[in-house]
């Protein structure tokens, strides 16, 4: 069973809101490389957007990690709907995707996970073909069907994905609603439809079933699994790698997994140090609740929605939020609850807890109603569509057009611009400073600064050290 460590993408996005920088990832690289997992996911659309937002070159993250961990297989995740909402790049067209793959490969990527958040493989199949043609290992995402589907329909669904001829297919359960029982029922028809194409699994832990489902996947002989180091696992994230390995040993079914438990523990400890230094809360299991089965929000969006509910003192209304999410999703045509639709649905649902339904309409919902990223699986609400106004679906940009519009920009910038919504000229470039926690004094100062909200006036003195902190801007 191939294990992919997604600590640096889904893990830190769901647990730390994407706060982990590229330099921190590189700081982790030697430790993560020693775990002997089969691959490490280093970047994704949200991570590239996070990099650009903090003024870092999104390609540098890959290059830097690859240099620090030269023998590690690196994976990148590409969604064909980047969701930043900038006009003209709502959907990544085939040749922009191909250019992205080339840039990713030249930076050090060997595997690519390809997602079209809308059903079907018409748009993803050419990207799969392009990836394979340039020697990349192409993994195609099959979103978990949310309702019980007859075996025949599952076989047909899987064979549709098999027709795109990826190297592997990943069954993706971002809402973490898969149970061990349901996984067991799904596998045979999916395998029947996929033929000899390996089947991987990505599940989350919102409902607390994640670790059990991961073990069931191993028991059932699935071919690959996404996991993360413990500090960025559980909750809205994927199951923890260390616990998974330990559990396999307990059950006596771990012979087909190569990752090394001791090195995983070391890497987890290193990541926990980072969390402690920056006062980031480490990933913890969430209590089981039924809401995820209704809202179907991906882990990172669910984490943000829960935090927003808690901040507003509305935690008790989680099931109301779930119902609102389901209703809004129906209104916009029932897209899969992946980015960018899930975030927009959650944002709109949160509004509905405070104000009359659709008193205001979030931008993401407007774009979904207008179907700018593609046709929705079901009908959109005609009243809402009339309110926002229909628009002609934009045609995805081509590299030729982009080169013509931005004649001085390199291809790397053009594709990064499409993914992040940032103009090519405004993209940050260059190497970032290596991450370091230099001295105990620096560590103390940074730690105290991060916890400044916890004290009003603090002075630390020791031989050679005199630190004074006072909240209020001084």
């Amino acid at each position, binding site marked *: 069973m191939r294990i992919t460590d997604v600590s640096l993408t889904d893990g830190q996005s769901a647990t730390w809101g994407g706060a982990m920088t590229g330099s921190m990832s590189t700081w982790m690289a030697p430790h993560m490389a020693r775990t002997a997992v089969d691959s490490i996911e280093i970047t994704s659309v949200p991570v590239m957007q996070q990099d650009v937002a903090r003024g870092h070159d999104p390609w540098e993250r890959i290059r830097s990690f690859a240099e620090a961990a030269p023998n590690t297989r690196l994976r990148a995740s590409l969604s064909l709907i980047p969701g930043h909402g900038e006009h003209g790049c709502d959907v990544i067209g085939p040749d922009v995707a191909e250019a992205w793959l080339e840039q990713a490969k030249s930076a050090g990527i060997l595997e690519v996970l390809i997602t079209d958040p809308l059903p079907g493989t018409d748009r993803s199949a050419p990207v799969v073909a392009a990836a394979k043609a340039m020697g990349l290992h192409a993994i195609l995402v099959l979103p978990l069907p949310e309702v019980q589907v007859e075996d025949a329909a599952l076989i047909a669904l899987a064979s549709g994905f098999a027709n795109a001829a990826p190297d592997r297919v990943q069954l993706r359960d971002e809402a973490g609603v898969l149970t061990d029982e349901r996984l067991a029922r799904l596998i045979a028809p999916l395998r029947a439809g996929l033929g000899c194409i390996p089947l991987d699994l990505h599940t989350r832990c919102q409902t607390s079933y994640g670790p059990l489902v991961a073990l069931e996947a191993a028991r059932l002989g699935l071919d690959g699994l996404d996991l993360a180091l413990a500090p960025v696992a559980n909750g809205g994230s994927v199951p923890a790698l260390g616990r998974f390995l330990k559990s396999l040993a307990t059950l006596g079914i771990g012979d087909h997994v190569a990752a090394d438990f001791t090195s995983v523990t070391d890497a987890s400890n290193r990541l926990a140090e980072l969390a402690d230094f920056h006062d980031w809360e480490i990933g913890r299991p969430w209590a089981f609740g039924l809401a995820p*089965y209704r809202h179907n929000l991906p882990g990172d969006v669910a984490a943000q929605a829960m935090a927003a509910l808690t901040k507003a003192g509305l935690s008790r209304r989680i099931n109301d939020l779930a119902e609102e999410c389901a209703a809004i999703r129906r209104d916009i045509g029932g897209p899969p609850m992946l980015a960018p639709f899930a975030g927009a649905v959650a944002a709109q649902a949160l509004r509905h807890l405070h104000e009359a339904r659709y008193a205001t309409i979030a931008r993401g919902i407007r774009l979904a109603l207008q179907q700018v990223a593609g046709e929705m699986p079901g009908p959109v609400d005609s009243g809402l569509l009339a309110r926002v106004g229909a628009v002609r679906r934009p045609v995805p940009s081509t590299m030729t057009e982009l080169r013509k519009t931005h004649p001085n920009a390199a291809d790397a910038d053009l594709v990064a611009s499409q993914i992040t919504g940032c103009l090519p000229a405004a993209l940050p470039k260059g190497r970032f400073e290596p991450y370091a926690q230099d001295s105990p004094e620096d560590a103390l100062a940074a730690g105290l600064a991060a916890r400044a909200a916890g004290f009003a006036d603090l002075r630390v003195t020791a031989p050679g050290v005199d630190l004074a902190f006072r909240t209020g801007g001084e």
Partner: protein
Amino acid sequence: MLDQLRAQVAAEFARTGKRRRIKLIDDTLRDGQQCLWATRMRTEQMLPVAQLIEAAGVDSIMAIALVQYDASMLFLNQNPLERLRLLARHMPKTELRAAVRGNLMRGFFPVADDITELFVERNFANGARRFTLFDALLNNENLAPGINRAKALGAKTSVMLVFNDAPAYTDEIYAEKAREAVEDFGVDAIAFGDSAGVLPIDRIRTLVPAMKSAIGDRELEFTTHCMTGLGPVQYLEAAVHGVDVIYCSIDPMANGPAPAAMQDMVRDLRYLGFEVDVDIDKLDKAGDILRAMAEQEGQPLGEPAEYDPALFVNRYAGGALANLRMQLQAAGIADRLPEVLDEIGRVRVELGSPIMATPYPAIIAGQAVMNVLHGERYRVVPDEVKKYVLGYFGALPIPVDPDVADKVIGNGSQKIALTPPPMEPVVPALRARYPYADDDELLLRQMYGDEKFEGLGPTGTATEFSVTHPIVDLVSALGRNRSPVRASFWLGDSSVRVNGG
């Protein structure tokens, strides 16, 4: 999952024409604090919470069990019966429950019936109105004195059957034991408990209906612990398949080793279409007090657990394992722990797979250690093992392997009579020894000895304990100071001056 469970609830609604109401037993002050705070919550800390629990409208509260008696008397120097009295006074409308551990009381061996009866009487006299009785051997005869006394007093009774993940403990066995309890004693309810939190979800779907159909119109109660993270699923599945009453703990004293969070369960049970009559806002207020109390006391809160299959593999976990490790270390054979654990598995099956609840883990471990140390299995037999096989603890639900029984009886101490001798009453002698003691005092002196009884301290009242009224907290804390305190505090135009001495 949501759709399937909802469909089942909707189908039941369509069939019966009414929404089923799920009742709630609050277990915060018994099991919640036992699992998270090692039972160190003091009586005065419970009282403000108790008032809110009553205001929230829960159907019943599990107030006390033997572990609470032990912690109260041995560590907190508080009178457990006074706790019951104070709880009853602070929640006069809520049914208070006490748990009775069969005929074992707090010890290792069965006790005379009259002391069990006195225990039930004094709990009733101090406010308990329902008794939940449990015997680890599923032997209803061991429960007879307690049940009969409780019923004679007019209290309600529930018999608790505990899940045992062993092949012989089938749905039929549990249904039969439940039916017996109803037919033989007329108990008001059967409770099913999964103390290890390992009852598989698919087993709930067969076990609950089997037990429910065996007990007619009596209520079926359910409790579990959330060690695997799936406790809440167990509760919901149990409710959907017929359980009427669930034991929960108030968040944040829930999850992890504790029962599921009552607020979460109420929300999700309602979401499934059940009626649940409770005020979640009041529960949240109780939760706020518990959170502040935990911070003040440096005690942990409940944290949802990460699924760990080790919980299903090793039946000899937790405190019992820690004790065993220590004993092996003391005997200089710590390195043979894995061998002993394997042997525990074998001995357990041969002795009829008893539920691993006190005192049986220790009895089985004792025999396993002897088998490992002496090479020949059952050549050396501890007295407790021979007594267990001979029925000193009561009839066994699953018979002991006959070959093993022969070895145990043959190689065990010949001083142990083959037929358990009758137990003489102890209360008359107690009355003679303490002619001026009331029955509460008699009971506690019998259970804990004179020194512990005489060392009991006063129990604070609600006005002396608060985690939500800073001024009260401040004055109360200063009042507890051993040395004289002189202090002044100002806040805006207000001031507090304290002169101790």
